[in-house]
């Protein structure tokens, strides 16, 4: 959790400042912005971050912030909405727009902390999966076409015999290919190999 970036967009000075105090106390790198326009005009550099935004603000409202962030940063920048003006249709609209959480003001700060933890947890998982997929891709480059065929068949869960039938080679040859694939992909077991393949597809 230490070192994660959190950006707070709220036009109310006190709300912004209190949130920044809280978040910095919890070890986040937190920055505040007066409005959506302010936020996008000096968009911070960060591979991933969590954004906490109000809805009713001058210049650009929260819904617009959510839309623009989804378009520019995708899932790497999850959004938590906090509002003192909540109603059910608005909450539904926001959840549909892809926000992670919708919290009504005033709220128990623990609720926000949990939400943030969940956010970054999901984000870390996601990043780890993406990293693994990237590594798998790098190793896949070294496979010969025949080895690649065997790899894909293994990921699909086929047995050696089935693969031998499909590729019209002997089961013995399949075993040799399988050993080569395992070595090249640096997989300790068959299940590790299958996980690599599945991760790539997500």
């Amino acid at each position, binding site marked *: 959790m230490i070192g994660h970036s959190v950006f707070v967009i709220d036009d*109310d000075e*006190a*709300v912004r*400042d*209190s*949130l920044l*105090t*809280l978040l910095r*106390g*919890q070890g986040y790198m937190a920055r505040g912005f007066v409005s959506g326009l302010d936020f996008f005009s000096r968009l911070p550099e960060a591979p991933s971050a969590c954004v906490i935004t109000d809805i*009713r603000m*001058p*210049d650009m409202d929260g819904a617009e912030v959510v839309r623009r962030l989804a378009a520019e940063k995708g899932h790497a920048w999850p959004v938590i909405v*906090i509002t*003192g*003006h909540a*109603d059910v*249709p608005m909450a539904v609209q926001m959840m549909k727009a892809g926000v992670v959480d919708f919290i*009504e*003001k*005033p*709220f*128990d*700060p*623990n609720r926000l902390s949990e939400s943030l933890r969940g956010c970054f947890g999901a984000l870390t998982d996601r990043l780890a999966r993406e990293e693994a997929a990237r590594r798998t891709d790098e190793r896949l480059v070294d496979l010969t076409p025949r080895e690649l065929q065997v790899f894909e068949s293994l990921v699909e869960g086929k047995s050696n015999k089935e693969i031998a039938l499909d590729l019209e080679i002997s089961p013995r040859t399949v075993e040799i290919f399988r050993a080569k694939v395992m070595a090249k992909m640096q997989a300790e077991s068959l299940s590790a190999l299958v996980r690599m393949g599945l991760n790539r597809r997500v």
Partner: protein
Amino acid sequence: MVLRTRRFGRNRRAPSSVRSIGLAFSTLISQLKFVGYDVSSARMAPVLIPAVAVGAALVIRQGLELVGQFYYLPFVPAVMATAMLAGRRSGALAVGLSIVANVVLVAREGVVDTAINALLFTVVSWFIAEMCWRLRAMQRRAETLSGRLLHRNQMLDAILASVPVVTLNREGRIRYLTDSAGLVLGVAADEAPGRLLGDFVEGFALDAADREDVVWTGRRPNSMAYPLSIQFGMMPENAEGVHATLCLTDLTQAHAADARARELHAQLNRVWRLNSLGEMAASLAHELNQPLTAATTYLHASQASLEKAGLMGQSACRTIDLAKGQLLRAGSIIRRMRELLAHESRSLAAERVSLMIADLHGVLAVIQRTGAVVVEIDIEGDDAVRAERIQLQQAVINLIRNATEALEGHADGRIRVTGRVRSEELFEVRVEDNGPGIAPGLLDTIFRPLITTKASGMGLGLSVTRTIVESHGGTLSVDRSELGGAAFSFSLMRERELEEA
């Protein structure tokens, strides 16, 4: 003897003269045949009529020769006949032809005698012809006048038939009433005469009838009471038996329309109060929630620092927990209040924009009168939309009131309400004025509740309007009107099934 000689002389010459007349006629007829259709035409008539008349007189005179001498006398009817049938030129031609015929046919003693006779004939026959022309002119005028009179009579009848008019004698008895007056009073037009008007109108008295501001109560035979206004006209003394004419107006419909306008006005006021209360609550909730959030968060942050102080801080942490709980309680109180006042999810129904706005005409009339502005309504196209009637009327009235206030002190304030189909799904309503418009610096704040640029007012009008529009799924936007002032517009969802229904 002399007479006889002369007669014989004339008789001797007669065959040649008759022959010459016959020749003249045959020439004339052949001429007429030659011109064919022109015979009956107006162009030929002024010549033809005197020629035929004088010719006929000539023939008659020749016939009368057997009985005695008639000289010019037979030509007088010819001139008369011409005068009756044609104009002055033809008359002059007839006189001339008669003189020529007479001079040619009758040999006179001397030039003087001939001239005097011709002159006398001219004077006498012209006098008679003049009388004929006068007579004809008078006849024509009489015809035109009676034609006009007839037309006016018909018009008067038609007007009277549509206007409920009653005439009364001095005692207040009905002398005459039109069919429509009969309809108003609930009596057949031929049964009413002779009865007192007081039988049909409660407490009617002639001496009070000229008070225009009184609304009388009419009572029809089926005992249904109705409001009645009476316009009074006193007749001059010489009109036989008629003392007064009364024009009746049944006010039932006007009163019903008044009542409807009053009811709508009251309803709009009620909705306005509720809306503005809701808006205040929402605004208050928003404004209070901010400091509550900040306070809770600050307390939480300080708790985190206290925890580092170990045991010493623990009891303080618990106290802070209690404080946080109270702040959150304040938040939930506000939320509950807001939920109470918040508009339930709107019950939108199929409505037509033009009808909803037409319904406001009573309210608009008051606004136009008191604000000295002109409100134009211009709704076009298929205006069936999904809306909550009273709320939408409230939104439109709010925008019109807003425009009226912006136009205060403006010489000829104009407000235009337009409705147009914008797309398959949307119908746009626009309210614009020719006032000063909105200063660019204020554009951000005008929709905020409790912020106003006016000396009086709470600053709720536009924010209530926006809430209404948003609850209809639209957005309220503002830009500059081509009239010069501000233009507020919003869109409504079109209702496509209303037409088939």
